[in-house]
């Protein structure tokens, strides 16, 4: 049984209005109007001087329970959207692992599900810990990315990206958030990701809510629940309208989807569901015993849903 022992987040210091990025993102007036009026986008957060290492360290530094548990950490998994090549032996996740004193941990990166890799990392962490059979062992999942290039700054006509980061301490038992199920499906015919165009892009847009609904339903089935049993959905923060459309499709009340962070953080790659978990908890949107569903979609195209009990 996989549990989230603790989830911590780092929200970067610089608050940037999407409107002020019009030139930088090459947005037309029409696109800006749509982003603000219908997508619910307003601001993003950036850490102008920080590196990926700084983002991950800052998120890990917010974990109140990590100190003293360093020797129990067996795995450090960095969940990324964008594969990044760095000259050997430079590696942010290895540097973070060393800096945190996690000398007994194996550290590696997963990016294969793009923005859904955060949920993948939690699933992998749980499987590895279960396989090892040590009830005291822990894994640390880290996620958060820099928005250096135009490809990293936005998903055209979908989202504007920010640099929020999250650190998740995963345990095989004893945490406050228990994973009940996980469902994921990759539709490889959309592997072109950001470069999809024409009919294929239209096809992706058409199947998007159905494919996400499919994995959400599958996760609910595996948890022995109906989607209507879910108390709160913690989405990816790409935009508001995609959730309006999905809720209409599956008949789920929109007010049970946590959309508060979309105008605040923008889409923070794999970190979104975890940022939303922290915000939902701090705003009293989750009470003990509630079930919630984390949802994420990665370009490429992977659709994932994880159901947890708080």
């Amino acid at each position, binding site marked *: 049984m996989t549990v989230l022992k603790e989830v911590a987040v780092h929200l970067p210091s610089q608050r940037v209005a999407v409107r002020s990025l019009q030139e930088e993102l090459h947005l037309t007036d*029409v*696109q800006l109007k749509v982003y603000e*009026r*219908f997508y619910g986008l307003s601001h993003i957060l950036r850490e102008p001087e920080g590196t990926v290492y700084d983002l991950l360290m800052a998120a890990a530094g917010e974990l109140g329970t990590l100190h003293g548990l360093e020797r129990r950490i067996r795995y450090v998994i960095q969940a990324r959207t964008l594969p990044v090549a760095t000259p050997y032996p430079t590696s942010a996740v290895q540097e973070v692992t060393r800096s945190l004193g996690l000398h007994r941990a194996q550290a590696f990166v997963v990016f294969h599900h793009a923005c859904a890799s955060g949920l993948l990392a939690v699933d992998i962490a749980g499987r590895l810990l279960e396989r090892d059979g040590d009830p005291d062992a822990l894994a640390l999942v880290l996620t958060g990315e820099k928005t250096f290039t135009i490809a990293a700054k936005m998903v055209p*006509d979908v989202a504007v990206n920010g640099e929020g980061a999250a650190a998740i301490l995963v345990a095989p038992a004893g945490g406050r958030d228990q994973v009940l199920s996980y469902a994921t499906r990759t539709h490889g015919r959309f592997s072109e990701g950001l470069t999809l165009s024409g009919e294929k892009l*239209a096809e992706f847009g058409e199947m998007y809510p159905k494919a996400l609904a499919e994995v959400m339903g599958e996760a609910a089935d595996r948890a022995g629940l109906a989607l209507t049993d879910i108390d709160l959905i913690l989405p990816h923060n790409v935009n508001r*309208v995609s959730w309006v459309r999905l809720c*209409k499709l599956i008949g789920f009340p929109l007010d049970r989807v946590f959309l508060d962070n979309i105008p605040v953080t923008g889409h923070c790659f794999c970190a979104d569901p975890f940022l939303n978990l922290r915000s939902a908890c701090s705003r009293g949107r989750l009470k003990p015993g509630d079930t919630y569903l984390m949802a994420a979609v990665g370009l490429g195209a992977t659709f994932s849903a994880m159901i947890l009990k708080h």
Partner: protein
Amino acid sequence: MDDLHKWLTHLVASYLEKDPDEISGSVSLATYGLDSVYAFVMCGDIEDHLDVRLEPTVAWDYETIDALADHLSSLVEQP
């Protein structure tokens, strides 16, 4: 209704940079290549023109000008 239908036809034609006579009310907007961004722009323009609030999914729910005009007519006739 006729005025609204005509206004919508001109609106869609302007997005597509076509002559309004080339736009049929019974053909889906997607068939004309009206992408999702312009579907939302259309929602915004309709809201401004009719002084109503629309679900942003309206362009998916009413795929043709005929269907959209019917829906909007019933919407503005509501007390």
